[in-house]
């Protein structure tokens, strides 16, 4: 029996097979880079996957210049995931895991398509996602729709994207409603109520005209959506 010289009892074929498995395992599941931002909820693997999906779905340039990465989709996704109930969070994580590693079983186009999704080049990521989107199987289309829904929500959370499209919310200064003197902001004590009865301008459902000044494109943007001063 041939064997490695320094480990006399291990056949060389077995050692090669183990080495190959290790290499494949590393290629499929290991070596994820540390995320660029500090994340509280997403693991390294999940962050790498979300970043690559965001790049594939929203590459830089085109009709809306910011890319998914410019828009900070992984950071948004981290915050959103933290806000989910535990059971729902597990489902979302399973979705990420599924798409990230499905190409290890059903490879992307090309001779070296047996790579995890985040290790594919941009062109093949696009081809993989298109396969999910146009599948004749409802379940596969559903996976694509769910993933794209998450990434799209993160993309649109960037004020720059809504500004590019002219869809950013406008500033609204509401009249003080009777209810505003009843409830504190969520999680705060009663002392956090900002208004007293004397401040109230609207006392009941019939206390206003049916229509007020309509909002329009010329109105000032909501403070969170204004461009930061240089």
């Amino acid at each position, binding site marked *: 029996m041939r064997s490695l010289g320094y480990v006399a009892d291990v056949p060389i074929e077995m050692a090669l097979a183990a080495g190959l498995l290790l290499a494949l395992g590393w290629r499929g599941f290991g070596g994820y880079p540390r995320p660029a931002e500090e994340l509280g909820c997403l693991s390294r693997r999940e962050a790498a996957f979300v970043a690559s999906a965001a790049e594939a779905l*929203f590459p830089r340039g085109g009709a809306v210049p910011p890319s998914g990465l410019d828009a900070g989709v992984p950071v948004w996704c981290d915050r959103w995931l933290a806000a989910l109930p535990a059971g729902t969070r597990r489902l979302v994580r399973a979705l990420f895991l599924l798409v990230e590693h499905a190409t290890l079983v059903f490879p992307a186009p090309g001779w070296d398509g047996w790579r995890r999704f985040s290790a594919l080049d941009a062109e093949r990521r696009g081809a993989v996602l298109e396969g999910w989107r146009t599948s004749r199987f409802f379940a596969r289309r559903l996976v694509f729709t769910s993933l794209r829904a998450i990434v799209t929500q993160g993309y*649109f959370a960037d004020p720059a994207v809504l500004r590019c499209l002219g869809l950013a919310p406008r500033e609204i200064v509401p009249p003080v409603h009777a209810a505003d003197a009843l409830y504190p902001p969520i999680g705060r004590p009663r002392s956090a109520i900002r208004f007293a009865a004397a401040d109230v301008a609207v006392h009941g459902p*019939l206390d206003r005209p*049916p229509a*007020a000044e309509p*909002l329009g494109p010329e109105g000032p943007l909501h403070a969170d959506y204004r461009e930061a001063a240089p």
Partner: protein
Amino acid sequence: MIRVFADYEPEHALRDEADVVVVGSGPCGAVVAKELAEAGRSVVLLEEGPPFTPEDFVLDGALSMARTMREAGLRATRGHVMPTMQAIALGGGSLVNSAICVRPPAFVFDEWAARFELSQTSRADLDPHFDAVESFLGIAPTPDAVQGRRNLLFREGCEKLGIPSEPIPRNVRGCRGSGECFTGCRARAKQSMDLSYVPAALRAGARVYTSVRAEQVLHAGRRATSVRGRVVAPFTGRPGPAFEIAARAVVLSAGCMATPLLLLASGLANRSGQVGRNLQFHPGVAVMGVFPERVDPQFGATQGMQSLHFLRDGYKLETLWAPPAVLAVRLPGAGLALKERLAEIPHASIVDAIASCHHSLGSVRPRRQGSLEPALHWRLHPDDLPVLGQALRTIVDVLFAAGARKVLPGVHGLPDELGPGDVEALRRQRFRPSDFVMAANHAFCTTRMHGDPAAGVVDEWGRCHELDNLYVADTGVFPRCTSVNPMLTGMALAHRTAKALSGRL
């Protein structure tokens, strides 16, 4: 008196008693609480969610849903996978719906009467209750001033095709046309229950406990005696101290997905076996039309125009706007092609149809024995497919008549985009249930009213057949879908339940 989470003492159980305890502060529960309090009854209103102030609203659609919806807005049916949402907030769904208030036509109630042995639930029987709710809330058609171009295009398209359309009546006063109904009205114009019925109930002496989850209705023989549960932290649901409210009557208004689970967890009112069964929805299909000119669709009432012309055919048309991120989810493609389509949103007008899918039934069951988390099963029945197909074709016709240069149907098996020349191909298309990407936030019938105690859970006044003082007031009591948006019908029935209950106390 209203209590919020910060008011509860962590180590002390909460106890109270009242003539009536109402579980759930959505449109139906809030009506019951206000009417009974104004009738001089002592009322306790329980709500699992917190009250939202304008500074609690967030404009990011997904984060907003994570704060205002159960399961972060990601709840879906099994069987045919379809998203469906349930709010968790003071005011319930009224905080985040588009305020549509429509009376169903008489034929809807005639069908209810004929099929479910109901003799006193005709449209004429309910009109006084519709009147009472409409006049309290100041429900009025959406004024032209806040329709915005997006809604008016629908009117133009309908006019060209000879289809009657009308401004949607809404519980809104002082609308600015921000199109933000689904993330909470920053203008404080929408008369959601937290701004209207709940403050009125408080003025009349009701006690409102928020951030409390009802877990069990206790009973002795044929009488409900109290509601028991726990204080829960906003958003996290972390359990706090226990509570128990003793009452002479109990009204469950937790919504048609939670009320049946509360009944099942309490072992009540299910001798008929109907609790949690017969789940129906109004599945919705939506189509985006892209116009040559800029529409600025974010301005204008979220849903400002409708057509009731096809109700007998099984569908209702209405205009629609939602946070752009939510709309973009339905756009086809990925990469730069997707970005091209995003850039068309400012030129878009969206029309949706809600369908009366009478053949498609489902169920609400606890995920685990005794759990209050629902497992929803529902399947789109093949016999309901023609309604969805016809609705889709009508929407496309209206959008092209209004001047759209293309439409994005969002239906599997159809091209991503259709031009005016593709309409004939659409007419020939045969659909399968899985072709449609639908959503449904109108849900009904899981504790349905029926004249026969063996076939339903409650009688025409909302009282459980098996108990003398346990009532249900939410859309679960509908025996069949309403064909129109259900909020106003639920409130009218709740108004009637409150009047009946007040007379019996």
